[in-house]
């Protein structure tokens, strides 16, 4: 490869082809994950009044935790506050679609469930929603991953994933870590 103008131009062109090829492979991988494995960024846009969410509506204390509706949909609702999740533990079944819904009355928080792709911000004024299917049983740690104040490092909850045979909601369709 001579260090002439033409040689430099040729190697730059080849390098550009390599770069475009790599970006194309990454884009195809993202599309493949989205279409085949249904791994997409959570994109729920829903507003809620952070001043009253604990008084009225779906995030009142009695409505928190896991609930199974008549159509079999499993939904878990949590409130993220400085510096704890309410409830501290939720129970969900394996191999069933689960909807996780989060709201906060104070500052910006964030959650992730270890070992899964569940990961979202929890922003005052909005309801964060993530749909997923848990495939492995066990207690998964769910820490706050957005610095929210001095107690941030103590802010964590547990997602208890149990086999479907052990997932027994009560007559109201509610399941908690105590009674499952």
């Amino acid at each position, binding site marked *: *490869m*001579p*260090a002439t103008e033409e*040689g*430099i131009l040729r*190697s730059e062109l080849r*390098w550009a082809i*390599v770069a475009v090829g*790599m970006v194309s*492979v*990454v884009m195809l*991988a993202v599309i493949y*994950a989205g279409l085949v*494995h*249904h*791994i*997409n*960024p*959570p*994109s729920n846009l829903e507003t809620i009044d952070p001043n009253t969410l604990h008084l009225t509506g779906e995030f009142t204390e009695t409505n928190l935790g896991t609930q199974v509706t008549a159509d079999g949909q499993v939904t878990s609702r949590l409130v993220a506050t400085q510096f704890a999740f309410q409830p501290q533990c939720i129970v969900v079944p394996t191999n069933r679609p689960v909807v996780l819904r989060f709201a906060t009355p104070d500052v910006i928080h964030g959650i992730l469930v270890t*070992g*899964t*792709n*569940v*990961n979202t911000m929890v922003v005052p004024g909005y309801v964060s929603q*993530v*749909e*997923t*299917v*848990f*495939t492995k049983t066990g207690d998964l740690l769910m820490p706050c991953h957005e610095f929210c104040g001095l107690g941030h490092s103590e802010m964590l909850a547990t997602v208890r994933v149990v086999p479907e045979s052990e997932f027994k909601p009560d007559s109201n369709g509610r399941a908690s870590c105590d009674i499952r």
Partner: protein
Amino acid sequence: MTTSHDREEEALAHVMGEVPRGALALAALTVGLLFLIWFLIYALVFLPRGMVS
């Protein structure tokens, strides 16, 4: 008649012909390794963690 200056010019031209090849090989190796690690994490960590939307 070749002078010492001419010989230096010749040696320099020879080196300048080699240097870009080495730089390209180094760039290809590092970018290739980076891309390989990205792909391994994508295939062995990201995809098995399951669906989310």
